[in-house]
């Protein structure tokens, strides 16, 4: 059976949901004739027609606003942000209209906002950001960050079927680098459930997105020196799998929080609070964070390499924590 890339998995997920449910449609910039900047919607215009794969003006706020309006009328829109960086232009519609609608007047807004995010592709300050925390801090939204092809497909399907607004961060670095064999049957990955990517006993690395692979690479190297990492992939940030986080901490008693997002206000801060509030007595060492520094994402390769958390960072911190 053929291997399916992460980007193809997203495409398959959308395609299958559109075949099954005629309420589902896509709107965004260059999604139709061009098939999307990353080809996630390639071939869909021919299959589904111009009123289900809708090319729009460069208007992120109106793309999301229109998705909201259509969702209120019973549709299941998927709004594509060409890059996650541009989602800031739609911030108001997402955080004020979509997120608060059910709370205010009982009207759910079942939209999916797709946001290709992340660095490692030399995109510079405006094509590399990880803006997930603005949305994690907004009650009423759901936020997911798949790291595998299986999850990319399972989570886009779950997001489309979800009755509430879901921000779907898809990591550009993983698009064509990650591939696996996918089951032929219809499957979803439930929003809010983490997955253990590597079982270990010494230290838990809790992470998500492309950093899952950084953690796994570090674990393979540390294995040689007898340090056994457990790697927990959160998959969803809002809601996040509190039980899985506490379980792994209680198991290994030492924890590293790893993300590509910058440090202050990053998800690690929330995780550290929850762990210290609910599993303090299980900890045998300080909670350690590995994150990008608090700067914009730089462009030039030596700068970007410095910016992104690396395998060597995880190895260094794990050794320190192991020795603690």
């Amino acid at each position, binding site marked *: 059976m053929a291997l399916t890339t992460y980007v193809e998995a997203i495409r398959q997920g959308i395609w299958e949901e559109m075949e099954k449910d005629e309420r589902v*449609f896509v*709107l965004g910039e260059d999604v139709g004739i061009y098939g999307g900047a990353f080809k996630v919607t390639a071939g869909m215009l021919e299959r589904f027609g111009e*009123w*289900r794969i*809708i090319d*729009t*003006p460069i*208007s992120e*706020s*109106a*793309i*999301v*606003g*229109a*998705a*909201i*309006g*259509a*969702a*209120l*009328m*019973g*549709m299941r*829109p998927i709004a594509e942000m060409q890059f996650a960086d541009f989602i800031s232009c739609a911030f*108001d*519609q997402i955080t*004020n*209209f979509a997120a*608060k609608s*059910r*709370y*205010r*007047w*009982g*009207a*759910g807004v079942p939209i999916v906002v797709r946001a290709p995010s992340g660095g490692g592709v030399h995109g510079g300050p405006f094509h590399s950001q990880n803006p997930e925390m603005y949305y994690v801090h907004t*009650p*009423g939204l*759901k936020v997911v960050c798949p790291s595998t092809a299986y999850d990319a497909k399972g989570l886009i399907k779950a997001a489309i079927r*979800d*009755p*509430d607004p879901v921000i779907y961060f898809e990591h550009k670095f993983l698009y064509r680098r990650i591939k696996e064999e996918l089951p032929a049957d219809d499957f979803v990955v439930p929003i809010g459930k983490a997955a253990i990517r590597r079982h270990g006993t010494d230290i838990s690395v809790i992470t998500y997105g492309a950093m899952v692979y950084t953690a796994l690479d570090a674990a393979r190297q540390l294995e040689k020196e007898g340090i056994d990492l457990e790697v927990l992939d959160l998959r969803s940030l809002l809601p996040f799998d509190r039980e899985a986080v506490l379980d792994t901490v209680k198991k290994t008693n030492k924890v590293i929080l790893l993300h590509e997002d910058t440090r202050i206000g990053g998800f690690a801060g929330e995780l550290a609070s929850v762990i210290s509030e609910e599993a303090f007595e299980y900890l045998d060492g300080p909670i350690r964070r590995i994150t990008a520094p608090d700067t914009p994402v730089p462009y030039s390769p030596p700068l970007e390499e410095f910016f992104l958390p690396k395998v060597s960072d995880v190895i260094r911190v794990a050794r320190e924590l192991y020795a603690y």
Partner: protein
Amino acid sequence: MNVNDVKPHAVPGGTIQLTAPPPEKTLHGMLYYMKLTRELEFRIERKLYRQGKIVGGVYVGRGQEAIAVGACIDMRHEDVVCPSHRDMGAFLIRGMSLRTIFAQYMARKTGATRGKDGNMHMGDLNLNLVPFVSMLADNIPVAAGIGLSFKIRGQDRVALCFFGDGATSRGDFHEGVNMAAVLKVPVVFICNNNQYAYSTPLERQMAVANVADRAEAYGIPGEIVDGNDVLAVWDAAARAVERARGGHGPTLIECKTFRMTGHSAHDDAGYVPRELFELWEERDPIKRFERYLTERGVIAPGGIEEIDKRINREIDEAIQIAEKDPFPDPDDTLKDVYYEG
């Protein structure tokens, strides 16, 4: 054209030349809803607010009643209305009850938002009434999406979207109207140009003379109407709705009017020249329409007093019920953030 040059029944373009006058039933409905709007908002702003019974701010549309009423009176149930904060008539015509509205303003559990949100932020999908948010103009892209859903599904429905002159300065006005125009969706955009956004006069809002002038930039028709003439609004809206139903896309209607109050109940509008209030008082949309109906014998002598009595009775009853309605339970704070099955 200067907005202060607007004379009753003398708008350039001759919008008062009705394509066909509405039937008498509609004329009666227009008067009832305009007067109901006026009295309802009078009670909220001048009575209940001053008695300390209203929770939070109050924004009324006194002097602007003809716009929502003229535009909404003939909308079909399946059409969708997205009002702004000076369009109480839209809520009433869509069927929101007076009790629900009073309970909303008094922050009761029986209000349109069950105490979650205040004042004009009311909506109900069963009434095809979508509430606005305080970020004015946000409802313009949303209305474009509502129209888009009709177009995708081939439904014979239209969305009517209201906003003020101030909202047209926001980017969402541009993005929303432009997208609606490009996708040719069935939406009618109605601007209540009341010449002030809080304390900011029109000339600080835009350097063009008319909001409707902006329509040309989007490739859609723009029309100026006398917003204090309910028949002129009705006529322009009817033509725009017909155009939208026919698949010809959106229209921008600018209703010239005047805000006869401050921005909100706590604002005395000291920044508005008094003579402007006097000028626009003469153009009061309700008095004008009463004269029109009386002169033509549509309303019999004593008929207006009958309507006033009915309205007062309905409002008194609704206030009595709403005042006894319970406040929400504190526990409700945590409910309905997400779908709960």
